[in-house]
């Protein structure tokens, strides 16, 4: 910096002397010849090389803006291999370094123990001996002595795609594991090698596409990270870096070829170089107002958002770039939440866009303002909030499903609507039995007594109240596609609909989550309870579309939930079954005497080997739960909830 000042001062001194020499040639009598002129020219050219090199080393810098127009993106289960291995991790809290080979071996053992008649021990042996699969390469690799480099691509196409050998081998291992999971025997099926290679090559392509998306992801969340209000960064954009080359090159070349016209061009260069020095305002330059056309819309409604910015800086802001903080779960359907403009002091600008409302409380985040100087050399990154927070609150109606749900056979001691399989008091005829002393006189079948002379008692089907708690797994945010609704959205929507279905059938229904004890509504009936449920499902922070860190640990939340459940309560758990810990929790509840039914939206995709592995992992979880006698409604991503429930109730997949 000081060095620059010295240069600048010397330059100005030289200008003064030069003009003096021009005006009064007698005043300065230095013995200067042509060589001095050439020397200055060469000096200029050397400087050119330096400046041009510096410029070529540094690209222009500027703030990255996210994409608030789109819904915040989530990834499919098994985005990485490590993530997929987590599905098979047996011990809950092991975070030891996990090799690809160990992960795949564990997955192989998991499917072998579930879908073949292997025990844990024999499965391990099979994997160690490489005798569990037809694919010799896979067998050798998981047995631990397979050098992946021995793999040679068998087709020209596979060679061309230049897949790394490890990718190929991993993909083939996943194929072999999938074959066991699907066929239940040790043969990997009829797929030819050729097919496998083209397949893995395609997966490889998907993998790279996925990676590119991953690179965008930090971008998506950058908005959140910028966090609070104020000036977040001052950046030298470097867009005029190297403009002095115009001056230096012109001087150097002009001197050497002795052309005054070329020397003059240098003046233009110097003027632009001087122009690029301008200071941006340092206090908050803008104020922001935001207005929404409807603060309490229904789901799916279009809401118009109008943002007004005012230049408060007292000076002209020639370059303002604005990106509004659209709430993450909302997507913009019309217009653009962005604006590029220039504002005189006190002037205001307005822009508006339309978002589509979804369930939840959606608070707008601060507006991102990039304020540049006139030449654009300095860019200030501001985060500006509105004076009062603006939010959309969208509370969906709870509509019952057109189908009924077959629940487990447990009831409370209170009379209700569930038709039980036991005889007792009720309205519907169930059976007769011999009269026993103490039976009510009114229940004696007098017709029969008249006919045969025997006393017999009429029994009716017992009708009892069911107490159900809807338990939502609010810790998993995955979906097969990046910018759609995710598993928690689906789970909460399903919980709302099943609440309405069960409540209108006369049952007593409550709401809880696996992650937070604060989100709890004891079982109840009636319109008030229904309204409470509706508000809870829409507003509770744990149930919002964006991840939320609850105050207590899941273990504590589980314990509190256990203490709140009265006996004879059954649970309806909504979970994608992506994590072994949730699977364990479900099985523990069942073992503790609370009959569980699981509603599981299936978020798995099959684009990459790791995603396919995660899909197998989820299948293993479903299998484990069903083997415990817990019915699972496996709800396909493209299937409607009534469809899945109807299929479940009619086939009676219950044990």
């Amino acid at each position: 910096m000081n060095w620059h000042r010295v240069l600048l001062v010397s330059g100005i001194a030289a200008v003064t002397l030069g003009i003096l020499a021009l005006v009064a040639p007698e005043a300065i009598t230095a013995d200067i010849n042509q060589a001095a002129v050439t020397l200055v020219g060469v000096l200029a050219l050397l400087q050119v090389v330096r400046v041009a090199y510096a410029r070529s080393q540094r690209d222009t810098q500027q703030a990255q803006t996210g994409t608030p127009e789109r819904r915040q993106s989530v990834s499919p289960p098994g985005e990485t291999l490590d993530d997929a291995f987590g599905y098979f991790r047996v011990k809950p809290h092991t975070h030891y370094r996990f090799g690809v080979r160990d992960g795949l071996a564990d997955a192989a053992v998991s499917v072998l123990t579930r879908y073949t008649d292997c025990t844990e021990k024999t499965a391990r042996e099979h994997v160690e001996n490489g005798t569990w699969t037809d694919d010799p390469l896979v067998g050798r690799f998981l047995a631990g002595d397979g050098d992946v480099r021995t793999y040679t691509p068998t087709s020209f196409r596979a060679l061309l795609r230049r897949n790394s050998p490890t990718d190929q081998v991993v993909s083939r291992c996943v194929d072999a594991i999938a074959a066991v999971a699907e066929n239940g025997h040790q043969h990997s099926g009829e797929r030819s090698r050729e097919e496998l290679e083209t397949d893995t090559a395609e997966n490889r392509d998907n993998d790279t596409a996925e990676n590119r998306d991953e690179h965008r992801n930090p971008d998506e969340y950058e908005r959140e990270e910028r966090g609070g209000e104020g000036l977040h960064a001052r950046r030298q954009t470097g867009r005029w870096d190297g403009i002095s080359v115009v001056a230096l090159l012109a001087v150097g070349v002009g001197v050497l070829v002795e052309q005054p016209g070329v020397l003059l061009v240098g003046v233009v260069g110097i003027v632009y170089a001087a122009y690029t020095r301008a200071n941006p305002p340092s206090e908050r330059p803008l104020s922001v107002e935001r207005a929404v056309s409807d603060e309490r819309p229904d789901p799916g409604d279009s809401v118009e958002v109008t943002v007004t910015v005012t230049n408060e800086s007292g000076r002209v802001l020639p370059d303002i770039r604005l990106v509004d903080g659209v709430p993450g779960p909302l997507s913009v359907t019309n217009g653009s939440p962005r604006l590029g403009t220039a504002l005189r002091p006190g002037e205001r600008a307005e822009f508006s866009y339309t978002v589509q409302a979804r369930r939840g409380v959606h608070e707008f985040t601060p507006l991102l303002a990039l304020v540049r100087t006139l030449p654009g050399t300095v860019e200030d990154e501001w985060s500006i909030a509105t004076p009062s927070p603006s939010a959309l609150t969208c509370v969906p109606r709870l509509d019952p499903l057109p189908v009924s749900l077959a629940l487990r056979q447990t009831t409370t001691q209170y009379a209700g609507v569930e038709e039980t399989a036991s005889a007792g008091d009720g309205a519907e005829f169930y059976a007769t039995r011999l009269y026993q002393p103490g039976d009510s006189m009114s229940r004696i079948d007098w017709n029969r007594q008249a006919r045969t002379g025997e006393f017999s008692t009429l029994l009716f089907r017992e009708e009892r109240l069911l107490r159900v708690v809807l338990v939502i797994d609010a810790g998993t945010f995955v979906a097969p596609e990046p910018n759609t609704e995710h598993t928690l959205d689906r789970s909460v929507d399903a919980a709302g609909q099943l609440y309405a279905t069960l409540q209108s059938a006369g049952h007593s229904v409550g709401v809880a989550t696996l992650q937070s004890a604060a989100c709890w509504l004891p079982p109840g009936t009636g319109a008030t309870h229904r309204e409470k449920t509706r508000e809870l499902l829409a507003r509770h922070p744990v149930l919002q579309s964006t991840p939320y860190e609850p105050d207590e640990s899941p273990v504590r939340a589980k314990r509190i939930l256990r203490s709140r459940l009265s006996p004879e309560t059954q649970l309806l758990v909504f979970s994608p079954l992506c994590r072994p810990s949730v699977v364990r929790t479900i099985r523990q509840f069942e073992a503790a005497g609370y009959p569980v039914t699981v509603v599981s939206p299936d978020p798995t995709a099959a684009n990459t080997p790791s995603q396919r592995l995660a899909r197998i992992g989820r299948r293993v979880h479903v299998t484990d739960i069903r083997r415990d006698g817990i019915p699972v409604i496996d709800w396909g991503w493209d299937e409607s909830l009534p469809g899945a429930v109807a299929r479940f109730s009619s086939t009676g997949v219950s044990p």
Partner: protein
Amino acid sequence: MSVDRGPTRVSSLVGGVAAAFSVSVIGVYSWAALGVGFLGLISLVIGLLAGKQSAITLGASALFVGVLLAGIEGVPALVLLVATVGAVLAYDSATTARSLGEQVGRNAPTTRLELVRLSATTLVGVGAVAFAYGGYALAAGGDSLTALVLLLLAAVLIASALR
């Protein structure tokens, strides 16, 4: 809804036109300048289409090299000055188009910002031309080697300081 992050329209158009203007002004006088300048124009346009800053910078540099080649062949000073401003304007507009496109996108309104920026850069250029050419015309009578060396040295020093 996706965001089109391509270069914004107004600045792209002005950038291309300014580059073409610069090339044709010097191309009238010099074949070499026309050739190099035309390559620069193509590189700049490619940079705009592909959103590549390096191609834009390279193209603008080539435009300027074209101007210098024309200067070496003895093209009148005023033509050189105007062509230089054209090259700088082409660089500035193209860079604005790209950066604005990346940050704000093509679907959002940005015309006002672009017009302000363009006029500022053009005005500075016009001022620079007037200053340089005016000084040149005034000092044309003087014939002091000392003054020339001092002024040139000043130019090199100031340019280095402002870089």
